[in-house]
């Protein structure tokens, strides 16, 4: 599929957290990474660091060798866990993974999104994701009453 000169480490960590998807400058790959990757669908702007991580992952996930794929998935999960990736960026990658049908990429990022929902109160989840509550207080109360065990806190 692509010419890939494999560098042996992920790029040096950028102290700034990646953009939230509203940056207009696209990044130039650093000189030491000669990656000419021909992705069918270009990755949306998620900031230079994350873009490289995602591109590398997509390449490795297409490998025939299961060990390569497993190592790549573990690396990706580690990265996601340790880097502060903004909500919007997470969702942009999720959507992208869905479009290019990369199940492992989708899984890894959805898992992170799920982690942000787990064990949180409904109001907290709304705030994190910017979900607008369009229930009336009465409607909401009735819904909570439908599944009381889910709302025991």
């Amino acid at each position, binding site marked *: 599929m692509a010419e890939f000169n494999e560098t042996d480490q992920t790029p040096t960590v950028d102290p700034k957290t990646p953009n939230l998807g509203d940056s207009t400058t696209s990044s130039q790959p650093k000189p030491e990474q000669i990656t000419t990757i021909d992705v069918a669908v270009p990755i949306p702007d998620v900031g230079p660091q994350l873009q490289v991580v995602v591109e590398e992952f997509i390449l490795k996930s297409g490998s025939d060798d299961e060990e390569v794929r497993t190592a790549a998935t573990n690396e990706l999960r580690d990265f996601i866990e340790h880097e502060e990736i903004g909500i919007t960026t997470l969702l942009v990658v*999720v959507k992208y993974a869905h479009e290019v049908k990369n199940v492992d990429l*989708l899984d890894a990022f959805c898992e992170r999104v799920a982690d942000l929902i787990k*064990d949180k109160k409904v109001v907290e989840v709304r705030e994190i994701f910017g979900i607008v509550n*369009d229930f009336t207080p009465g409607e*909401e109360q009735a819904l909570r009453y439908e599944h009381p065990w889910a709302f025991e806190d």
Partner: protein
Amino acid sequence: MDTNLVSREDYITDLPESIIETILTKLPLRDAVRTSVLSSKWRYTWTTLTELRFDDDCCISDAHHRALPETGLVKFVNQFLLLHNGPITRFTLSSEYLERCPYVDQWLLFLSRKDVQELSFGLAETEWFKAPSCLFSCKKLIALELVRCELDPPLHFKGFPNLKRLNLQQISIAPDAVETLISSCTLLESLTLSYFEGAKLTVRAPNLTYLMLEGYFKDICLENTPMLVVVSIAMYMAEAYQSSSCNFDKVLGGVPSIQRLTGHSYFAKYMSIGNTLGKIQPTYRQLKIIDLYQVSFDDMTEIMVILRLILSAPNLQTIQIEGSSWSTDPLDLDFWDKECPRDATFAQLKVVKLTQISGLPHEMRFIEFLLGNSPALEVMDVTKNVYETDEDEDMFMEILAFERASDDVEFMFAEDQV
């Protein structure tokens, strides 16, 4: 976490349904159900989840309520299924507290109509769950896992036509019924039977690649399993095995593609019955790892099982053996000089790991044999059992003095206080 935007735009709610479902699938069901209150668009998203996992964390935490069907898990599952919409591909029910009740049978009936593909059921220990006949009409099953269950397949049952993975743990089933179950699921690739109490087992499974048997078996025969790649057998029955034939052939006679063999407890003993070294063919060209536990080095016949294995596996890379030997009074010690094929070469053997070794004569001869015939050996890892009264350090010195075929062996020695 990036929370310094005051009013954030909602990017999540309008994502494609399948993405939302993927995210919700990764949540415990409680959290998934809670999303119904997020906004009107979220109200029913959770009801179309196709993968459901119900366990003791799903509901109220105190023990009293848990036990009652009216509260707790039963109520949760009932209401959930009532509101559920669409197919269910994977269903897991795992509870230490939930005992058998009519609801469970009803849930299975419900699932059989939803074309469920993966089913996992495990209830409380107190009373084993008797699987209702509707379980056997889940024709779309690809994976089935049952714990503490009584299985009584109906007479007309012709097997699960799509079943690839079967995992039965602590199951009560008639011996010929389990054999028929296995052989009638012609696509079966992976079979696990644990805590199994059944005397004889013959496995006929032409597509099986993974086999794990653990329990009180008197006799195991792998009759039609040509595709097996990984085999793990643990035999807990201690009495002398009666056999008129060669057990080694019964178990490993028809597994040319085997890559990994693991044996626990009385496996080596079982395999020794009827075994001869005779003329050994390189039969297991893919066998790379042999992992045996509780091997009795006092018993020459068990050692011959190991030898037969390693002599028939030209590409063997790793041997791991846990010993279980007591006698310092060895019989047949001259075997090593007379009958043992001294010119054998283990060309690919790289790692040897031996534990619970006591320095007994047969153990030492075995180590010497391996060291002298493995030109590619990289690691010889030996852990010695040390008794309080034991002050003898000679065993490791003796091993170091053995002639080695490989120049690069790394010796790793350790001691285990017994």
